[in-house]
């Protein structure tokens, strides 16, 4: 997030796009509710009739895959009605002329024809966002999990810069991150193209500095394979051995059948996990890791807040903390790591990752610290891009709307989209093993519009077969008013009806994120 969670409550307009906030980030949504109680406008751009949509001042319900068109329609209106922030654009940004040219003809009416959202609503939302003193954008995987995900994020940045709604309290472009430490994993360089601290792997100076700190001659300069590319690279014989720490890709990857096939082609697979997951079933060696409750360390949350967690339990059985297993394995690979404790590892991180330069266990207390925190006396940074952007001037991007890779047709007439539910999480390996949650919401389901369902003779709980070009699942149907006649939704937590057997592997060309939010399916009545 460019800003902090508490600031959401102070915003005058909140634009939520592609985020089922109350179910996927419930405690973040409390700030949204607080702001709305104080009279803030709430604009929700989301194809599903989720709780925040129903609470919204303006709910824009686009067809899945058309976010960019809706946002461009809003920006076109902001330009033509002179609601943009000339002072901010002039002093803080570059690339404005090309950006303006890219919006030529992108009128609210054009956006309406692409997305199905009423042009008047697009105008109203644009005005509410542009004219408020403090407007904030909250987004999640509904923006990013598209073959045009990068365009979606760039378009949100364009919108914030165009209106000057960034760099001040209560504003900003704020991704709500889905995993407790996805921010930290990225900060630490667990990415195929960046070293710790987001320095590119082809940055020779950064490589040299790290190689020296790590006591090796050099580090590889070529970007590696993204997680989403692994199945194809394995099938091509380029990748032969895989080491997985706590990832259940046989369930969470798009086109999971393809991933499962790839796993059988590996020469060697090590899985380090709490459970014998669907993925671990393919392993040669399984290393039992202990849970977060059995170890200590830090997580970095969505607002870049580095927080400590302490050891509550002794490791169960012979399980070990992940960091200890990595140290042991590294030594056996001929590279001993001199790390005696998580605190010592953090000291090394502070020495090698500029944004974490001032992070130390003894400083974190109960509130943690928000990076960038470059020096031991730095108080942390709640708001990014205040005086200037990280790169100096903010760069507008000229984006061209592209439709999703796989659109409905006669054979597969519905748009299929996936997400989380309140009571479960990801592949379900945690929540489905938590009795109260599993008891409360035991079963998979697919959501469908009541009108579409009843036309097929379906009632709540009837079984349907959902088929895409890649697979099929049989699942009970839930008829949810407002779903939209062309849309089918499934949560992806359930191994017995795995939504990712259907999803498309096509990737965003820049971020290499799969298009999990849009593919084409057909629906048939299934026999029990």
């Amino acid at each position, binding site marked *: 997030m460019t800003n902090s969670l508490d600031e959401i409550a102070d915003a005058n307009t909140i634009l939520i796009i592609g985020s089922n906030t109350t179910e996927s980030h*419930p405690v973040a949504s409390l700030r949204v*509710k607080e702001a709305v109680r104080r009279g803030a406008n709430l604009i929700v751009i989301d194809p599903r009739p989720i709780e925040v949509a129903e609470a919204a001042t303006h709910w824009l319900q686009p067809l899945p895959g058309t976010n960019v068109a809706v946002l461009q329609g809003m920006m076109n209106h902001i330009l033509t009605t002179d609601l943009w922030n000339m002072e901010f654009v002039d002093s803080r940004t570059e690339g404005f002329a090309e950006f303006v040219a890219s919006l030529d003809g992108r009128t609210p009416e054009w956006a309406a024809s692409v997305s199905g959202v009423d042009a008047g609503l697009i105008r109203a939302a644009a005005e509410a966002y542009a004219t408020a003193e403090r407007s904030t954008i909250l987004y999640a995987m509904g923006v990013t999990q598209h073959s045009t995900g990068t365009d979606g994020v760039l378009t949100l940045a364009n919108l914030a810069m165009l209106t000057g709604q960034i760099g001040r309290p209560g504003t900003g472009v704020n991704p709500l*991150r889905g*995993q*407790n*430490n*996805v921010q930290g*994993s990225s900060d630490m360089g667990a*990415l*195929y193209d960046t070293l*710790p601290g987001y320095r590119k792997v082809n940055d020779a100076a950064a490589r040299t500095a*790290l*190689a020296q700190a*790590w*006591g*090796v001659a050099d580090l590889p300069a070529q970007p*590696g*394979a993204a*997680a989403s590319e692994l199945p194809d690279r394995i099938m091509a014989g*380029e990748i*032969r*051995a*895989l*080491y*997985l720490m706590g990832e259940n890709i046989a369930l969470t990857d798009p086109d999971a059948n393809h991933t499962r096939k790839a*796993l059988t082609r590996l020469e060697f697979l090590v899985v380090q996990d*709490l*459970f*014998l997951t*669907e993925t671990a079933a393919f392993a040669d060696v*399984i*290393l*039992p890791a202990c849970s977060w*409750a059995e170890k200590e360390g830090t*997580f970095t*949350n969505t*607002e870049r*807040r580095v927080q*400590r967690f*302490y050891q509550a339990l002794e490791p*169960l*059985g*012979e399980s*070990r903390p992940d960091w200890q297993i990595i*140290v042991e*394995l590294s030594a*056996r*690979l001929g*590279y001993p790591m001199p*790390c005696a404790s998580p605190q010592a*590892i953090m000291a090394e991180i502070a020495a090698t*990752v500029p944004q974490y330069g001032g992070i130390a266990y003894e400083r974190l207390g109960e509130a943690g610290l928000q990076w960038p925190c470059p020096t031991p006396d730095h108080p942390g940074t709640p708001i990014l891009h205040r005086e200037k952007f990280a790169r100096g001037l903010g760069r507008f991007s000229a984006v061209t709307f592209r439709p999703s890779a796989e659109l409905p047709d006669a054979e597969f007439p519905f748009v299929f989209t996936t997400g989380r539910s*309140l009571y479960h*999480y990801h592949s379900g390996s*945690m*929540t489905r*093993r*938590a009795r109260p*949650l599993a008891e409360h919401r035991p079963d998979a389901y697919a959501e469908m519009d009541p009108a579409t369902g009843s036309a097929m003779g379906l009632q709540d709980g009837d079984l349907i077969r959902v088929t895409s070009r890649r697979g099929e699942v049989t699942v009970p149907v839930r008829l949810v008013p407002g779903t939209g006649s062309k849309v089918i939704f499934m949560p992806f937590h359930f191994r017995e009806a795995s939504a990712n057997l259907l999803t498309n592997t096509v990737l965003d060309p820049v*971020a290499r994120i799969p298009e999990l939010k849009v593919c084409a399916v057909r629906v048939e009545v299934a026999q029990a």
Partner: protein
Amino acid sequence: MEILLNGTRVAVQPGQTIMQAADSAGVHVPRLCNYPQLKPSGACRLCVVQVKGARGLVAACTTPVAEGMEIETDSPTVADARRDVLDLLVSNHPLDCFHCEACGDCALQDYAYQYGIKEGSYDGARRQVEVDDRNPFFRIDYEKCVLCGICVRMCDEVMGYGAIDFAGRGFTTLVSTPYGVSLDDSACVFCGNCVQGCPVGALVPKSQVGAARAWEMKKVRSVCPYCGVGCAIDVHVKGNRIIKIEGAESPANHTMTCVKGRFGWEFVHHEDRLLKPLVRRADAPRGAVGREWFEEATWDEALAAAAAGIARVRDGVGPDAVAGLSSAKASNEENYLFQKLLRAAVGTNNVDHCARL
């Protein structure tokens, strides 16, 4: 601005309530219905204090301070009034502290002890309502409810669901869903913030029932392992088992949690947990699901096998034939070491994690 608090001059902020001013000065005013994240409601009358010149006693939680105000928080008159309130509550409360989960962590018990209330002096009928055991998350014992309203206000003011409210009047007043339906059939999302707010034993996580009481548990500060909000939590532990999780104060969550953070931890103790390293049997087909295809191994054996398999490919085919996926569930320290292993020990940038899934 200054006030005279129990005879001592105290600097206060304009707009503070007497309770806030007393808290800042380190003077505890008894309270049942006050909760930091909620608006004061003045419902329980336990926080009454004496203000010179005021008619009768005033509620400290709702009365703002004024310049020169002279306040007595524990005069004999105040103590008598509190005893009356506590006497009424205790008279209508089951005195089964011996087997109550809240024992040792109960505001009513603490204040009854402080004000010398052994049992209630009112003989009449006592509220008799069956325990509501219908949801899998927490138990509702209406007989223990002191009607402080924290749960009602939490659900309304903070969560915005309003799943529960006061129903009935006078002696028959209860906190209830509309028409008394099960919480399962109400607007409740089982965040359990009401359970954490309950000052007595009316709302108790089922995982704690019969398992542990306050003095037996150690409380360990942690961060929730689910989404990226990073809610601070306290893990309550007895023996080597988690008994319950509660929200803790951090700028990320201000003591609130969602249903997963509070009630989603049992996977830690699940029978499926892998407790020993496993090595695939030589005769096992790839992808065969189930423990029967694996043999238990010592850590030395398993680590040696893991390192040998990776080294064989690294040295035989090349570093870029090895890849690793780290985890957004693992700590910063672990992610740092993981990518360091791939880059420095193996020599490849084939390292990533589930950021895109």
